């Protein structure tokens, strides 16, 4: 019996036929984004946080790419958790209304 609730009705080759082109293009988008980031000039007053002056969001993205390369199920869930604020207590005051996609360095 499958460990999942509903077996994916498409076979492996059907999954590849349906989605390969779309995800090949998405991978190139990530590569081009990192190239663009490398080409861009540094900010005047340095970047927001992150190791070695790197933007903390890009640093988190590079770490997520390592999760992608690991074997094992539920890569999407593991990457979601990697991008999540893992602290448990409510914060004192909302600093803004939106979100950045990655927790502040103090809450990773």
């Amino acid at each position, binding site marked *: 019996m499958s460990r999942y609730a509903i077996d994916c009705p498409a076979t492996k080759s059907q999954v590849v036929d349906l989605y390969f082109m779309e995800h090949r293009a998405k991978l190139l988008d990530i590569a081009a984004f990192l190239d663009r980031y490398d080409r861009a000039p540094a900010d005047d007053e340095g970047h927001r946080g992150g190791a070695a002056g790197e933007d903390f969001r890009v640093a988190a993205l590079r770490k997520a790419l390592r999760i992608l390369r690991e074997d094992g199920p539920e890569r999407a869930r593991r990457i979601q958790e990697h991008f999540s604020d893992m602290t448990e207590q409510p914060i004192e005051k*909302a600093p803004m209304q939106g979100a950045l996609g990655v927790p502040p360095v103090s809450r990773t």
Partner: protein
Amino acid sequence: MPYIDPHIHMVSRTTDDYARMAQAGCVAITEPAFWAGYDRSSPKGFYDYFRQLTEYEPARAAQFNIRHHCWLCINPKEAEDPGFAREVMTLIPEFLDRPNVLGIGEIGLNKNSKNELTIFEEHLGLAQQLDQLILIHTPHLEDKLKGTRLIIDAIKRNTNLDPGRILIDHVEEHTAKLVLDNGFWAGMTLYPDTKCTPQRAADIIEMYGTERLWINSAGDWGISDPLSVPKCRVEMKRRGHTDETIETISYRNPLTFLSQSSKFSTHG
């Protein structure tokens, strides 16, 4: 095949969207009270908004044989000032008896702050006291997992509300199981780019099944797609899912949850 979009903010959409939704098979919608894209300057702004949700939108939807229902609250993005939020909350009871109001929503958290949590808990109290269904917004992106945990803790700690009468919305890969395992209903919101796509929603259905799970567009004033429910149905069909599975997720499940209110109907 008819469908229900159980979470869409039609006040921000054009009448043309109603026409296209009707053409795609939409028979009923529910519209939770939410942020307008800007902070209202006074509680009076909410009074007018509640009138819009209970008077004007149902009439606009009816032109296309779509049944319009709504949920009332002050949303978490405007709950950082508790005094202001409480003033808005005093307006809610007089609207709850209106014929298209299903309950309290979308309450919840946005940045997981102390004041947001306080106002969320006060809404839970109001819902419990007035025996209302509840629709809950979970935060986006990095705040979602923590916010979903705080929300579930607050419900269990402070209330004896039946989880079968509460839908926790915007679940993704890391929160769906948490919500379903605790007995709540779960909503998946489909966005064109920044969040859950129709492909990933179909994946989550395969991983966790169709029980107590629905899909919605949460179409609003931002980049969003009022046709994302029918698009997800096409995606599931393309992958080979049965009509029965597709109907369960996009019609039967919302019908079952929402019919806990006698005011919900799919007939024009």
